[in-house]
């Protein structure tokens, strides 16, 4: 998994720094925090994990190692919820 993309069948809305995603497949609502919202915004088309990681580390001044673990964890959860497509 090195590229991610939003599932095109998912409805979402950004409220300030939070994003609320509605999955009609599972009839569930998911809420993303500030970092999650950035990841969601970046994944409009196929985007590499490296690009996301570089952006997040630069924007929030976080160490790459910690950011990688957290973002991978977030992407795994979003993939499981069928919000993101990976390749």
């Amino acid at each position, binding site marked *: 998994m090195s590229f991610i993309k939003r599932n095109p069948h998912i*409805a979402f809305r950004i*409220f300030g720094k939070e994003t*609320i995603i*509605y999955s*009609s497949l599972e*009839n569930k*609502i998911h809420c993303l925090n500030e970092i999650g919202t950035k990841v969601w915004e970046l994944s409009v088309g196929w985007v590499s994990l490296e690009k996301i990681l570089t952006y997040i580390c630069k924007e929030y001044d976080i160490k790459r190692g910690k950011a990688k673990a957290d973002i991978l964890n977030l992407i795994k959860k979003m993939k499981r919820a069928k919000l993101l497509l990976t390749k």
Partner: protein
Amino acid sequence: MEFNLSLKIAQIPCTLTCKSHKLFQCLEERLAGFKFDNFNKEKHISIFIKQSKPSKKKNVYIQRNIKTSSYSKFLVKISNLNGKCVFDARTKKGYILATCNGRRMTNFILFSLMEIYRFISPSYNSIAIHCSSVCYKNRGVIFAGPSGSGKSTIVKLIPNDYTVLHDELTFIKYEGERFYIHNPPVSSVHWDGLNKRKRTPLRRIFFLRKGLYNKVVPLSICNALKILMRNVYGVGVYPDTNKIFDICCKMINIVPTHILEFSKKAPLLERSKICLL
């Protein structure tokens, strides 16, 4: 000979066609407040109503069965009222077959009409919510919550200067950057505001939760949306669920939402405070 009855429920125009004059008179009386004459006939919903002989089968339990096929058609069968309702969202044409008599027949027709409106409402920027609604000086408040949370109780307890619009179902329509409360044509109880084609601007949403005292608790957007989606009809069942989500998002963004911890045993003075607009 055909008799046509033109209606406007939640600003959505509709024509009911029936062959029996008796049936027409009965519907005209029950839907008097929603009658409307001047609208563009190309954009309206068209429903044909027919009555056939009552079936001999006696069903005790209510069974509501909605089948959606290619996300455009639905079928409702209610066994205790005996009848069938089919509606196609693409052609905007429906058919109601009532196989019972008298009041049950009228109830079945009105129930079917309500189902059709729930089904079609997202296409008209509108949603149907399981909630009670009140109006004070042309400002509307809705109280949403699951069954038993006190929706009907709260509308019975509020001060007299509030007009009760409905205690079970409300259509909320997005019109010109604002949300308006519209009445559905059916209710078990006849309130003052019912059966009138009247719209009220929506100013507050309260989600009811049982508590020891009456108090208003702030709510985050995410939680408000989660609770609202739970109370909207058609989520996960009807087509256009994404459209419903979109309307709910707009609503949460525009209309302030709160949790209302409600207890009917709390003192009367506290009760009057909870409805402050």
